[in-house]
């Protein structure tokens, strides 16, 4: 079965999510949202999925703090973060390029990363653009660090980085190349990555989504997704407004 890049990435992320209770997905994250909904379908209703920014797919009634309180309570198992820069230590930069006091480029800001990165057990880094511009040796500003001293309270952190070229795992403060997506090569990954990373002697190819997975995504997940990401659902899955009726 043919598949699109988005389908591959969602399948990779769904496997990273694993068997957990609650996945929360930030705003403007259609691929992680697809992955979370796919994981829920496979788990017959588990994990519980919160799609932030969608009143239909969130339960919050205690204002903007509830997401963070919920994470602090240990009630969010998986979250997604990205960065204008991500470095080889798992540090992410959502603030600026250049000197902080006189930046060359200013990004929006750190959002909740400097808390969520510490308290959500599985943070999946997701950045489709895989280049030496985005994946750097050291970020210019640490919005949130990839690892902490042993005595710093930390129940969470990054477990993986998914890009348009490959999947890295993260452990002990370093990334490891786990698989390269079909159509991409290890050499290409090395060339486009600004940081060092570990890799096995033989790097496997990221497995293609199975026909069952593609059917589940296209027939069951896509219509749910269309409520929140109508444009994405239409483009990737060809799901139109009619899906709303389901």
């Amino acid at each position, binding site marked *: 079965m043919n598949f699109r890049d988005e389908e591959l990435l969602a399948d990779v992320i769904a496997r990273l999510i694993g068997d957990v209770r609650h996945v929360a997905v930030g*705003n*403007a994250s259609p691929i992680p949202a697809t992955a979370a909904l796919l994981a829920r379908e496979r788990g017959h209703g588990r994990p519980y999925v919160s799609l932030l*920014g969608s*009143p239909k797919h969130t339960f*919050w*009634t*205690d*204002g*903007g*703090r*509830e997401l*963070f*309180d919920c994470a*602090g309570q240990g009630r969010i198992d998986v979250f997604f973060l990205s960065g204008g820069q991500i470095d080889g230590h798992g540090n992410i930069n*959502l*603030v*600026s390029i250049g000197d*902080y006091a*006189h*930046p*060359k*480029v*200013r*990004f*929006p*800001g*750190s*959002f*909740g*990363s*400097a*808390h*969520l*990165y*510490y*308290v959500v057990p599985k943070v999946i880094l997701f950045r489709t653009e895989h280049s030496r511009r985005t994946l750097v040796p050291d970020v210019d*500003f*640490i*919005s*949130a*660090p990839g690892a*902490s*001293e*042993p*005595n*710093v*309270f930390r129940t969470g952190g990054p477990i993986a980085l998914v890009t348009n070229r490959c999947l890295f795992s993260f452990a002990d403060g370093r990334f490891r190349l786990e698989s390269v997506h079909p159509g991409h090569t290890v050499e290409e990954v090395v060339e486009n990555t600004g940081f060092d990373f570990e890799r096995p002697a033989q790097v496997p190819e990221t497995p293609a989504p199975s026909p069952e997975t593609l059917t589940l995504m296209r027939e069951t997940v896509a219509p749910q997704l269309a409520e929140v990401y109508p444009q994405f659902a239409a483009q990737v899955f060809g799901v139109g407004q009619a899906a709303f009726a389901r």
Partner: protein
Amino acid sequence: MGARGSAMSHLVKTLDEALAPITDGCTLVVPREVSGVPMAATRALIRRGVKRLHLVALPTSSLQADLLIGAGCVETLETSAVSLGEFGPAPRFSAAVTGGSIAMKDATCPALHAALQAAEKGVPFMPLRGLIGSDILKYRPDWKVIDSPFGQDSNKADPIVLLPAIKPDVALFHAAMADRLGNVWIGRQRELATMAHAAVRTVATVEKMHDGNLLDDPVLAAGTLPGFYVESIAIAERGAWPLPLPDYYAADAEHLALYARMAATAEGFAEYLDKYVYEKQAA
């Protein structure tokens, strides 16, 4: 409550009168995009030419901060992010930060919620997990790290960040409705109550007035900020436009895309102000 009731109806004012407590140099707290952003009030403040605001955007902002910054109303900005979301970066914010025309106090969302809750509770600080090892903390000399006295292992320090309370001069937001006693229905947007509790004064704009007392109905009361905390109210129909008032109306995507295009340059932004902010005054 008779005497109080009649006194309270003076709370309902014209937009410009209601905004009087927001003076040059004051610390003003405003909510995130989905919690009722007072855009009509923001345009009125720009027309009045408010200056040197210490703006606290709880915990993020979009068009509101970008407009106020572009119009030269802001001296310092404390927030976790400013972005136009799907319409791209906030251009006047980015220009002001790279140009050095505003002072930034970068935070992270739960830190701002906690700092407002500290003021709500009348305590000097709130603790927060996370932050340690980040450059956010590095550039916030007003945040302190202590060794928690409740650390599990007496041989190891348990460092934790303490955030000083943020006690704004004024809280400003837009909501669905208010009554003549000053009670404002805020629904699930509980941070609006925290903002009002934390601030010295609260100013709200609302879509419409509710007949009767919102606190008399237990179902409405559950989503009501008591008038006790409210300084002034003005009616501003579609007062969040072009941003959304969730459950009431959606964002005006076309206008936001227009803003993003125009505000990309200083000249375009000036034109936007002329057309969409100052024009309102002439009308």
